[in-house]
């Protein structure tokens, strides 16, 4: 549970704090190790110094004892008072040292030895005192006592030496143990340092990785974005520190940039489509205007002409000129179709009617020079086509083809239905279109012709047909010079509406 709490909090720390924590931990560990080593070393040194003190004390005892004996010998020889005082002082020193040693003794052997030394000392002092007294009094028999004391002195020295020996061997055992422990300590230390280094390194790597990984991800993603690749993945960061802030901000930005770009693209696509639609409409309008031949350019007021034709028609009816009336009425219908039909799309039926009116007039002009044929087996009421398609093409066939022929000119219009396509064919056996001219027409090269304006007529029709079919190629022209021409236009059988433009 504590771990979980730590983990949660870990993610919340800022990078600076995380680094500080990490460094703090390392310092702590290193300090801990040093302190431990230090403590152990210190303890060992203490113990060593303790044993050295023990030796020096015991040694001191030995020395003091010898000094004491020397003082006794000196007084016995020269009977100086100074020596006597020194002897007394020396006794005190010995007592002091012995007490010190006794305080620090810790084995039964040394206890017995010290007891023996004490007892010995008592006897030795007895002997020395007696000898010194006898000497003081001027007697010459002090030697006996002194020799006794000397003999006890030897024993005491022996005991002291044994004590030293014991101490030495104790300490040498202790010292061996110390050496062992020291080498173990050294191994532990090395291992500890190694382990610490590895941990530190590993931790350091992990930590820096942990820090730099999101930064690297961020950098890579930013690079991608700057190159124009906007499809970078979201960056996931588990922590809650500054890097997380960066990553989140980056994610938000990249998302909104993506959204903006998509929106822009959509918008521009829509605009493009709108523009294309507009263009199409304008083009259609322009072409219609072109096709509307009795436009204001020629200064013919259409209403004027229309009304005039009506007057003529009435007059000829009144004069009972039947053919004249029919012809004028046909002309009138043709004309009316062209001025009132600002619709861009009409039914095929209407187009056919107009062609028939037109041909009616032309028959009068050309008489037997031309044969006209219209074959249509299908219901044309439902088929929607652009207006002014059929008549101009038939007119073109007549002008271009038949006018040059003396006899036997033929124009045929054939309308068939194949699957869902309606094919409108205009066939003539006239002069044909030379290949170069045909190519120009098919490649839709607009030329300003001063003389023969017929090709512009076809051009206009074909342009509008193309617009109607949304620029899919839907017409075919085949022509051989002096043989004839075939124009085929394909319309969809369904779709389209009679539109008023």
């Amino acid at each position: 549970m504590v771990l979980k709490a730590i983990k949660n909090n870990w993610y919340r720390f800022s990078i600076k704090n995380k680094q500080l924590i990490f460094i703090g931990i390392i310092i702590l560990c290193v300090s801990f190790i040093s302190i431990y080593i230090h403590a152990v070393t210190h303890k060992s040194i203490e113990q060593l110094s303790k044993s050295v003190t023990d030796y020096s004390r015991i040694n001191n005892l030995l020395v003091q004892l010898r000094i004491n004996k020397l003082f006794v010998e000196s007084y016995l020889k020269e009977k100086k008072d100074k020596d006597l005082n020194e002897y007394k002082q020396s006794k005190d020193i010995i007592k002091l040292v012995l007490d010190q040693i006794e305080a620090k003794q810790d084995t039964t052997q040394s206890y017995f030895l010290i007891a023996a030394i004490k007892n010995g000392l008592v006897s030795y002092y007895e002997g020395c005192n007696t000898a010194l007294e006898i000497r003081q009094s001027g007697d010459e028999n002090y030697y006996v006592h002194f020799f006794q004391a000397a003999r006890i002195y030897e024993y005491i020295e022996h005991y002291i030496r044994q004590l030293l020996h014991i101490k030495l061997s104790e300490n040498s055992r202790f010292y061996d143990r110390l050496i062992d422990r020291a080498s173990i300590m050294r191994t532990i230390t090395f291992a500890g340092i190694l382990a610490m280094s590895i941990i530190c390194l590993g931790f350091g790597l992990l930590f820096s990785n942990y820090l730099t990984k999101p930064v690297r991800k961020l950098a890579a993603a930013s690079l991608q974005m700057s190159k124009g690749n906007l499809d970078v993945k979201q960056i996931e960061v588990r922590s809650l520190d500054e890097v997380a802030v960066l990553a989140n901000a980056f994610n938000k930005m990249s998302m909104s940039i993506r959204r903006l770009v998509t929106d822009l693209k959509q918008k521009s696509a829509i605009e493009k489509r709108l523009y294309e639609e507009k263009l199409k409409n304008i083009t259609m309008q322009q072409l219609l205007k072109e096709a509307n031949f009795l436009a204001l350019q020629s200064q013919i007021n259409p209403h004027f002409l229309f009304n005039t034709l009506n007057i003529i028609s009435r007059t000829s009816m009144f004069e009972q000129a039947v053919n004249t009336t029919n012809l004028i009425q046909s002309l009138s219908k043709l004309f009316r179709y062209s001025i009132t039909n600002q619709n861009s799309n009409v039914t095929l039926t209407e187009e056919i009617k107009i062609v028939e009116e037109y041909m009616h007039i032309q028959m009068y002009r050309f008489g037997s020079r031309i044969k006209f044929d219209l074959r249509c087996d299908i219901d044309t009421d439902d088929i929607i086509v652009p207006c002014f398609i059929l008549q101009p093409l038939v007119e073109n066939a007549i002008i271009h083809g038949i006018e040059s022929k003396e006899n036997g000119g033929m124009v045929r219009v054939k309308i068939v239905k194949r699957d869902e396509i309606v094919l409108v064919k205009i066939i003539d056996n006239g002069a044909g279109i030379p290949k170069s001219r045909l190519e120009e027409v098919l490649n839709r090269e607009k030329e300003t012709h001063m003389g023969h304006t017929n090709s512009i007529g076809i051009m206009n029709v074909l342009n509008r047909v193309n617009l109607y079919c949304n620029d899919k190629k839907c017409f075919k022209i085949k022509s051989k010079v002096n043989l004839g021409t075939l124009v085929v236009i394909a319309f969809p059988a369904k779709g389209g509406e009679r539109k008023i433009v």
Partner: protein
Amino acid sequence: MKNHSLTELISQLNCVYMIAALEDAPQSQELIRQVIDILRYKMDRKGHIIKVSEELTAVDNFISIFKLRFNDMLQYDNEIDQSCLDVYISHYTIMAFIENSLYHAFKNKEGIWKIKICMKKQGSFLHIKIDDNGSGFDIDKYMQKDMPDIEYGTILSTISRLAGYYKKEDVIKIKSSIDKGTSVEVNIPI
């Protein structure tokens, strides 16, 4: 395209003309002839210099067709000095105003519509006067019209065309007031 179809129309009308002759319909013939003449007059003549007589023929044709439509409501007079007939003027000089009158001036007019053309030589000028008793129009407003393309045959275009041709600003003077008719004076230097 336009001229071609006009040509087509003219040739078709010619055809009808001949049939009317065959069927013995003189009035129809006359009408058809007039229409053909007007079409020919309008076709391919833009800005050309033609004789006064040609211009007047076109005006006559035009007015007689209009007369047919409106029976006797239209009254046309002219006082033309014979010496003027051979003078050369610009195409549509008179026709522009006649057309304008016939199309616009008599829309709401009650009573008889009158058009009069007077033409005589005055010193080194050919003086033409065209009057109608139509509804008139606001001259100043019209003259201030700023159209990007001035259609051929309108008053504005005719004025600018003539002014440009004769290098004078006041070749044409128009006086018009609402409901009081229009009077046009054209002074052509000869």
